[in-house]
């Protein structure tokens, strides 16, 4: 019996081996399998496509049926979620009362419009990144829609891993028609949110692209008081100098090198000599508020034909360069008693809104010869595209090191608010340095680089005005330029696969698409129809008509949110949240003060250029100079591993390392343990040791994929 079995087995083995040998090659077999799989997929897609025709028909019908959707939308601030978390109830114009724990009014409205039942399952104070990290462990099973701030890269990555619904396929199947239409009209957005596999998995928050983001704002009266008063009693306390100037030596500003600049079409401002104000101030025997300011006034009168010296900085004829700005800052720093009527011993010429915005300081790099620092609005956008179309990491470049050294000189002179570097300090310095003038313990700041509407708000300080940026040689051309346009944000939302039934996916698509309809866009940008004027529009300074808020908004906003409309709409109404939608500038215009409008008009009427996705600007050294980089790069898991395993460029301490230069290099007062690069070689070696080459190669590859995919 055993022999028979062995014989049969042997025969079977021989036969199967021979059959295997006679069949097609393994390559052909694999190709046949692939073709079969593709055919099956195509048939399935065809089924969906066929079904989509029905789906669209059913889409309308489906809205008749209530579908429950769970949202996990985390922003690290319970006031900013979908849920109303204010202590006091809010009574809407129609008498509806909203109390803590309910959905905010806008979300209740959308819920009704789309006949859905929304449940906010967010841990209310949870940060977006923590939420994604936590939920990824359960395959995003706990909700249908996930969203938040600075998570676009995560949404794309998990999308490619099959965790989020492929919106490209959904759009091909007829879903999200308004979003699809928006992307067709805005290919830059499509390109920026497409993952490496060529698909879209999230809907982003798109700020008012191609608009000015931040601008330079100052206390206007301080400049005129300093420079235009004839009987000023300046301070005479000693002032120590460290900064040696940028436009010196071979780089003197004269003739072809910025001798004549054009702040506005038809307005040419000529500088008469090659004198440098920093050198003049540095050569003074006695340096104090009086002598420094006197030297500056004399310098302006000697070099420019202004009616008043302050015009060098303020108004449409402004033509100051970075040295002239620093000279002005010195005068401000040296005259605290004069400028504050004796209310302060110290004033701060330059500050950021909060310490987490400290990288705004490095944006001054643009005015030190056009050095690139951030390729987009985000501080994480530490890339620019060079003349060969290659992405270059900015923070490690010699130009940035030099700028950090200049900033260090400024820091040593006390020109930068010293608390700006401390990340543990969560104070809003803009409120402190501009908003406490009439308080018992006032603090005074002069200048910041921030958004126009909020910085020129009457409730903050009625003296703040917008000025043109310093004129500089940017991309090889003397011009007015701000390397900071409004961008596609790394925020948004996506639909979970594991957490959703097909019915929920369909409805979630309808929700995502809704904010790209005319009605949905107005709702998210401005609010419920009941808080808008029915037959009236707001005419913006750009000549465009926008929905206009009614008096209920102003009154309620003043009563509950100290007149901060942005906060009111976000925290009380549920609008303007960084979900997937296109933000409009019309809201911002309506809460901009007169001085803010003057600022907009000043900038829009000037020859100013800003960074845009299209990248248009005066011809210069680098045709890609004005181009903004995408908000995030879609990295494959292999690329992510490469970066996490072999580089450490992205760790927070690299920024700390950079700011150590600003804080300690010039004065040499670094505390024990603080590493301060004394030379660029030392600085560059730090980045090289952290795997800069590999880091750049990896991001270059991700960028190439993005380019190839388009």
């Amino acid at each position, binding site marked *: 019996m055993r022999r028979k079995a062995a014989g049969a087995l042997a025969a079977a083995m021989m036969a199967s081996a021979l059959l295997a040998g006679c069949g097609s090659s393994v390559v052909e077999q694999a190709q046949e399998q692939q073709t079969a799989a593709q055919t099956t997929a195509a048939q399935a897609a065809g089924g969906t496509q066929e079904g989509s025709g029905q789906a669209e028909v059913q889409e309308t019908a489906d809205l008749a049926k209530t579908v429950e959707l769970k949202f996990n939308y985390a922003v690290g601030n319970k006031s900013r979620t979908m849920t109303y978390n204010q202590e006091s109830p809010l009574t809407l114009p129609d008498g509806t009362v909203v109390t803590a724990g309910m959905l905010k009014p806008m979300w209740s409205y959308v819920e009704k419009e789309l006949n859905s039942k929304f449940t906010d399952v967010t841990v209310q104070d949870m940060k977006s990144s923590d939420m994604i990290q936590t939920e990824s462990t359960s395959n995003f099973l706990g909700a249908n829609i996930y969203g938040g701030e600075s998570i676009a890269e995560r949404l794309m990555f998990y999308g490619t891993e099959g965790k989020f619904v492929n919106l490209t396929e959904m759009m091909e199947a007829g879903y999200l028609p308004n979003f699809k239409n928006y992307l067709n009209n805005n290919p830059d957005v499509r390109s920026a949110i497409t993952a490496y596999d060529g698909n879209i998995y999230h809907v982003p928050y798109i700020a008012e692209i191609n608009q000015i983001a931040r601008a330079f704002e100052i206390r206007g009266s301080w400049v005129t008081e300093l420079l235009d008063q004839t009987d000023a009693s300046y301070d005479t306390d000693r002032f120590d100098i460290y900064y040696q100037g940028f436009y010196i030596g071979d780089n003197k500003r004269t003739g072809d090198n910025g001798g004549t600049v054009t702040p506005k079409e038809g307005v040419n401002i000529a500088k008469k000599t090659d004198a440098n104000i920093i050198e003049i101030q540095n050569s003074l025997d006695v340096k104090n508020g009086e002598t420094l300011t006197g030297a500056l006034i004399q310098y302006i009168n000697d070099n420019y034909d202004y009616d008043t010296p302050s015009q060098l900085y303020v108004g449409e004829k402004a033509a100051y360069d970075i040295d002239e700005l620093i000279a002005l800052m010195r005068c401000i720093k040296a005259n605290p008693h004069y400028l504050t009527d004796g209310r302060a011993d110290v004033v701060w010429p330059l500050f950021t809104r909060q310490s987490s915005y400290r990288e705004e300081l490095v944006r001054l790099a643009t005015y030190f010869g056009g050095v690139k620092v951030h390729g987009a609005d985000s501080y994480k956008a530490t890339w620019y595209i060079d003349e060969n179309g290659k992405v270059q990491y900015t923070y490690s470049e010699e130009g940035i090191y030099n700028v950090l050294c200049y900033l260090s000189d400024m820091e040593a002179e006390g020109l930068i608010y010293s608390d700006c570097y401390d990340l543990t300090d969560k104070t809003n310095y803009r409120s402190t340095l501009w908003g406490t003038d009439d308080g018992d313990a006032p603090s005074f700041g002069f200048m910041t680089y921030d958004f126009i509407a909020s910085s020129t708000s009457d409730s903050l300080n009625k003296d703040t005005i917008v000025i043109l940026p310093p004129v500089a040689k940017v991309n090889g051309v003397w011009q007015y330029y701000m390397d900071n346009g409004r961008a596609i944000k790394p925020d948004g939302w996506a639909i979970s696969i594991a957490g959703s039934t097909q019915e929920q996916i369909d409805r979630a698509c309808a929700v995502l698409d809704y904010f790209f309809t005319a009605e949905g866009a107005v709702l998210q940008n401005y609010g419920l129809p009941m808080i808008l004027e029915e037959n009236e529009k707001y005419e913006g300074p750009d000549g465009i008509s926008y929905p206009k808020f009614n008096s209920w908004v102003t009154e309620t906003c003043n009563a509950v949110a100290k007149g901060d409309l942005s906060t009111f709409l976000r925290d009380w109404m549920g609008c303007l949240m960084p979900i997937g939608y296109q933000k409009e500038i019309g809201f911002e215009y309506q809460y901009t003060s007169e001085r803010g409008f003057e600022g907009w008009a000043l900038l829009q009427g000037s020859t100013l250029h800003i960074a845009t996705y299209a990248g248009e600007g005066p011809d210069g050294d680098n045709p890609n100079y004005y181009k903004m980089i995408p908000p995030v790069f879609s990295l494959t898991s292999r690329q992510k591993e490469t970066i996490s395993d072999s580089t450490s460029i992205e760790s927070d301490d690299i920024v700390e390392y950079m700011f150590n230069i600003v804080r300690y290099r010039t004065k040499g007062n670094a505390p024990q343990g603080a590493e301060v690069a004394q030379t660029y070689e030392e600085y560059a070696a730090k980045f090289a040791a952290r795997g800069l080459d590999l880091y750049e190669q990896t991001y270059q*590859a991700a960028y190439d994929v993005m380019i190839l995919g388009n």
Partner: protein
Amino acid sequence: MQKLFRVQKVMAWVYTVTALAVFLYTLVFMTEYKDLFGLKLKQNSQISFFHDSVLQTFNRQIFALALVGILVIVFSFFLEIFTKVPDLFALVVLFACLTGCAGGAVYAITNIQAVEAFYRGLDFQYLYLEGLADYEHKFTTFRAGVGVYVLQIVSCAAYGAAMVMSHVRFKKLSAAE
């Protein structure tokens, strides 16, 4: 007779070593191409097809064939080929198995060449996009495979021939006695 039986034993051991070598080969077959695992970009889809479909499929097939080769060793022990002259049944069974193994080896060689040709034709220019800069073609596994399977064919033939001769001689001697 003693001499022929010694040859049969030696061939049995040679076959055993060869079959084990083939088995080991199938275990390490993918190692040289591990860099090509996990490619995600559309630009590299042919390479991932090569790795995930062609190579993996082929590896599974040759692994199954290698197990057949191992079974022959088991049969050899089971049918006492290492210690005795095979009877007709053992001879038929093992001859069939060895024919199967040799056929499998021929199949493997043919396909290694087809796989190698496909590999040679792949476009690696976008491999750098996934962190593999300066990728160079690697043919060691394919070349070694051809060698190993040629050895297997030879060893199968030699083992089978040795058993046949040993069996025939034994039968003749038995008839003469």
